[in-house]
């Protein structure tokens, strides 16, 4: 049974500690894969503010991790997502997976971050020296999530 560890973080996300908690934790795991999302400095961005829908977000993250753990037979699946205000370079999200082999761990991480983008209720507000605005959703995010969903649907068929 895979261990699922998901949650919303309103303080700092520590990438080294996140990775350290995965390395060596599962003796059956030959592969540990991870993704770290961080605030990108572009278009005069001075800070990013992440809003979410309490109660529902937690469930969505857990569901995405459970699905990945089941599909790729993971030993462990982790999703930790920041909320609140962050500055450029700060981590927003850590996604990690451990599995017996590398391909499963790598694919599971890709699935989890792509699905998170479109299925977990988070919203980014961009702050600049001139004011602030809500970030638009990217079509490429929708396409990335659809890639995995199409692939899983064709495997189930």
């Amino acid at each position, binding site marked *: 049974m895979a261990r699922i560890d998901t949650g919303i973080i309103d303080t700092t996300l520590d990438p080294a500690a996140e990775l350290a908690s995965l390395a060596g934790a599962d003796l059956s795991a030959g592969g540990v894969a991870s993704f770290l999302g961080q605030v990108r400095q572009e278009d005069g961005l001075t800070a990013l503010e992440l809003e*979410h829908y309490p109660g529902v977000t937690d469930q*969505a993250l857990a569901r995405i991790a459970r699905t990945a753990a089941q599909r790729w037979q993971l030993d462990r699946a982790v999703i930790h*997502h920041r909320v609140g205000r962050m500055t450029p370079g700060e981590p*927003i999200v850590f996604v990690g997976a451990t599995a017996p082999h590398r391909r499963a761990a790598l694919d599971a991480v890709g699935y989890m971050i792509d699905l998170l983008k479109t299925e977990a209720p988070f919203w980014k507000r961009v702050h600049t020296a001139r004011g602030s605005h809500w970030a638009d*959703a990217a079509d490429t995010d929708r396409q990335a999530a659809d890639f995995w969903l199409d692939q899983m649907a064709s495997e189930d068929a």
Partner: protein
Amino acid sequence: MQITVRYVAALRDRMGRPGETLDLPEGAADSEAVIARLRETDAAAEALAHPSVRLILNDAIVPRPAALADGDILAFCPPFTGG
């Protein structure tokens, strides 16, 4: 029946308020009826009708249209932009 409506993120700004309580006739009430009702008095509610708008009904993300019952909390959400 009474429904609590919430507007989230960009839709909260667009509507100019975080939400409200609506009295709807019993039966035949769904998310689209709520939008139609709001549009009668508020031109900004047109934004809620956009196909990209997602719904959270009580504590679950649900597809549109969503059937409603007395006491439900319905949140209108712009597309998610986390990660």
